[in-house]
């Protein structure tokens, strides 16, 4: 058993299938990402004690909140969790201040009101203490919800899509505030979101969830550079996932991709001839500049024809139909670079696949899912 501040193991078959293993350290923010219906919110609810699972184990610090094996199942009131609901679930008949006062469970009323006032000030809501939730904007309501979740002195902070109900401008501001706030609270934080960008911006680690299973947990960089399987890569919205085989060519190990033999950074330790799925992140596909060859171009050059060129603001999404394979590469280039290099449907182009970016995933082939 590790010394993590929060350890969560959940298994359930019905009604919502779950197979989740999580560990979060104090002060760490873990983002749970996955498509809707993947069980993200259910995991939070199970940690808070609002959802019963068939078997499960939840330990927070030295306290065991749930251990079905030993028959331990603490009620939500007994688990010190701060939970921010997706719709905030503020008590509509109570002022912002009283929403917090109610959640502070010890001390005189005067002291509790003082504490609540301080917390509201911490989320920059001073002067709005007496407003009812409906008299507050969406962003202000969210701050009250965060402050209320912290009011009880929680051991764990759980955030269920806390930014989904506000407009984009407010969202960015609230995300910034959360990033600042978390520096001052040394407890495990779990953020549920379906927004990958949000997860990357805020989380120390990301856990990818699908159909109730935690598929991979890692730093954003690890996940985006080394997804555990083609399935994870697809869930993360990655495009360049292909099938190839490990071969020996020119006295070295190579990745056979169609007629191409790609150089690899590290030995795979796989028997030669093994069919593998592999992936390369966008950042390791380098576009060859027209008429200005550079040294890097000798590294795994791939030639092809531009099949599609979609400008999306400052970035342009380019699909390159490769000449020596049946696959197409998708890459994002700066729109001005795309224009300068004459990238348009039908144009010839070349890219380099950097060795360090080629990530061999598994031997299951493309059908893994």
């Amino acid at each position, binding site marked *: 058993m590790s010394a993590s501040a929060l350890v969560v193991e959940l298994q359930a078959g019905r009604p919502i299938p779950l197979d989740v293993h999580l560990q979060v350290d104090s002060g760490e923010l873990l983002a749970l990402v996955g498509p809707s219906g993947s069980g993200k919110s259910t995991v939070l609810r199970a940690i808070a004690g609002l959802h019963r699972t068939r078997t499960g184990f939840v330990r927070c610090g030295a306290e065991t909140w749930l251990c079905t094996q030993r028959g331990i199942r603490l009620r*939500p009131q007994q688990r010190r969790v701060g939970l921010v*609901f997706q719709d905030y*679930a*503020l008590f*509509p008949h109570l002022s912002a201040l009283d929403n917090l006062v*109610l959640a502070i*469970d010890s001390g005189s009323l005067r002291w509790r009101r003082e504490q609540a006032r301080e917390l509201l000030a911490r989320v920059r809501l001073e002067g709005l203490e007496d407003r009812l939730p409906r008299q507050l904007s969406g962003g202000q309501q969210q701050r009250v919800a965060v402050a209320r979740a912290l009011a009880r002195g929680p051991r764990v902070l759980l955030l269920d899509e806390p930014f989904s109900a506000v407009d984009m401008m407010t969202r960015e501001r609230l995300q910034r505030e959360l990033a600042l706030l978390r520096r001052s609270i040394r407890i495990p934080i779990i953020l549920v979101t379906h927004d990958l960008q949000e997860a990357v911006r805020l989380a120390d680690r990301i856990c990818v969830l699908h159909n109730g299973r935690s598929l991979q947990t890692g730093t954003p960089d690890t996940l985006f550079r080394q997804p555990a399987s083609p399935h994870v890569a697809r869930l993360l919205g990655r495009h360049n996932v292909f099938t190839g085989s490990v071969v020996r060519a020119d006295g070295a190990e190579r990745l056979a991709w169609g007629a191409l033999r790609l150089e690899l950074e590290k030995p795979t330790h796989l028997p030669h001839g093994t069919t593998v799925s592999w992936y390369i992140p966008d950042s390791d596909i380098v576009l060859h500049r027209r008429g200005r060859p550079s040294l890097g171009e000798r590294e795994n050059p791939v030639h092809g024809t531009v099949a599609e060129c979609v400008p999306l603001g400052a970035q342009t999404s380019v699909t390159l139909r490769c000449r020596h394979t049946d696959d197409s590469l998708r890459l994002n280039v700066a729109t001005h670079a795309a224009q300068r290099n004459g990238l348009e449907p039908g144009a010839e182009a070349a890219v380099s696949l950097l060795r360090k970016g080629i990530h061999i995933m598994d031997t299951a082939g493309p059908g893994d899912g």
Partner: protein
Amino acid sequence: MDWTAFRLSLELAAWTTSILIPIGLLVGRWLAYSRFRGRGFVEAAIALPLVLPPTVLGYYLLVSFSTDMPVGQLWQSLTGDGLNFSFAGIVLASIIFNLPFAIQPVQRAFETVPMHLREAAWCSGLSGWRTFWRIELPLVWPGVISAFVLTFVHTIGEFGVVLMVGGAIDGETKTVAIAIYDRVQAFDDEAAGAMSLLLLLVSFVAIAIVYGLAGRRKVVSVR
């Protein structure tokens, strides 16, 4: 003006509402939050007094209150009196025919309190009991007032069931509604008119309160 009958009606309404409101809260909350087989059946049984002719309901109550039947027997063994033609009998009858008025508004009110709010209260450390007092009850309060007013007024105005079960015994079971009928039979139009006007006013004020609260509830609706 039969003040004895009026006082009796008020007493009957007070007894009925004070017994029914806790029942309404318990049953209304249970029906709003529980999902079980036969829930529709329970709701239908509660709504039955709304559609049943008062004489039919009164007849069945009269029969089951008789000392030959279990309910009547039980009451007699407890108090030594019969239920029929007694004040206790018309209180019990009022409780039964007012069940839908006491339960339905409270149930509808509980149904508008989202599950999330109760869960948020639990996660804020509030016990089930404190969640009820601090969160649920303040939010369902308009429904409770509606139930109270409807039950009170309906009890004062009920004629058929009370007459069947209670007869028209002065000072015991003769309520103001029965007194009006009695006065009309005796061609005492003046007294009948005065009492009718009084009932009209009481009913109008009560219904105005309910509609006023219903209007306000839209404004303070729970998200």
